[in-house]
């Protein structure tokens, strides 16, 4: 039993090593409050693209058509809304930041603003990419499935890890002390923040 549990623990750790690093780095990024795309200080890239919205289309349909025209990489379905000037705005979020298209209907064009995030915010977004994402990109889907595997692996690793720790190192006082400290720490924080 111990042989197999240890083997599973090791193999899961090796197969998910990079993703564990991504999870750890994502925690550091949010703790350090790394600037997001709006506060990062980088200047957005602005472009103008000809676009004619069909007269009978709804805002949501126009948003989908804008997506087909621009094909922003790795982005899912747009968030469509109207801005303060009543212009249709389609926001395409992706792991790399935001592509915001503002429809200037009278001029027959789109004002396209691309805000690329920092590598740190990219890592934060990457850690939160799951198969529920609506993006059609193969890379997003493949990464999302790897994240899915790593979520379950993380759970299995923590369970197999504690089993190994308790069965092989229980006689040592610091095993008991570490488990008691970790348990107390978590539940005190849980109760305090709840």
């Amino acid at each position, binding site marked *: 039993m111990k042989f197999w549990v240890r083997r599973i623990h090791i193999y899961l750790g090796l197969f998910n090593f990079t993703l564990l690093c991504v999870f750890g780095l*994502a925690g*550091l990024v949010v703790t350090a409050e790394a600037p997001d795309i709006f506060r990062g200080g980088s200047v957005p890239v602005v472009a103008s693209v000809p676009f004619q919205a069909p007269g009978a289309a709804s805002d949501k349909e126009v948003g989908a058509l804008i997506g087909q025209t621009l094909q922003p990489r790795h982005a899912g379905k747009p968030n469509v809304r109207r801005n303060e000037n009543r212009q249709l705005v389609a926001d395409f979020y992706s792991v790399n930041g935001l592509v915001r298209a503002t429809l200037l209907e009278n001029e027959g064009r789109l004002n396209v603003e691309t805000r690329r995030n920092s590598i740190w915010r990219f890592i934060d977004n990457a850690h939160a990419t799951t198969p529920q994402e609506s993006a059609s990109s193969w*890379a997003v889907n493949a990464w999302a499935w790897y994240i899915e595997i790593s979520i*379950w692996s993380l759970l299995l690793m923590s369970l197999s890890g504690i089993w190994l720790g308790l069965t092989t190192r229980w006689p040592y006082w610091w095993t008991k002390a570490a488990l008691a400290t970790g348990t107390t720490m978590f539940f005190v924080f*849980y109760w305090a*923040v*709840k």
Partner: protein
Amino acid sequence: MYRLLRNTHLVLGLLLFWVVLMYGVSAAQMAHRVRIEQVVTERDVSAAAGLEARPLANLLMEREGLGGEMSAVTSRPGGYRFQFTRAGGNTVIQYDSATGKVHFRETQTGMLGVLNRLHHFHGLHNHTGRRNAWGWLVLFASLGLLALGATGIYLWFKLHTERVAGSLLLAANLVVSVALLIALRAA
């Protein structure tokens, strides 16, 4: 060296067991959009008329036992509203400045909801000491996860019998994940 790193790996793993479990369970909940049940209760209490938001919040915390982070103060006809946000839910307060009537709308989310919120709480510059303390725990857990990975690699490498299979898995992990990250980051 081996013994030191083995013990470090074990102690960190035991210290962070519940935290990692919390992140794993809440990540699975979010990834699969498992529905979080909410229980909503509403009630009215009275306070002095003409209070500003912060004195009212302090009064309600003291008198009604409310807790959490006060946020989202917005004006409304005849008064204002704000909310107390906690991991386990939130309480929206609506205050009528003329009459002093306070309306509570309390939402409780249960354990899955708490885990979900804890997953998102972070940072060392929050409004409450409790949230900042949690932020320090997140920092410790993040560093701990990186240390667990690094010590784990060292411990595996010292196990000569697992080197072939382990090398294949690690190589697969590095090739696939780095290639995917490069593909994702590509403009």
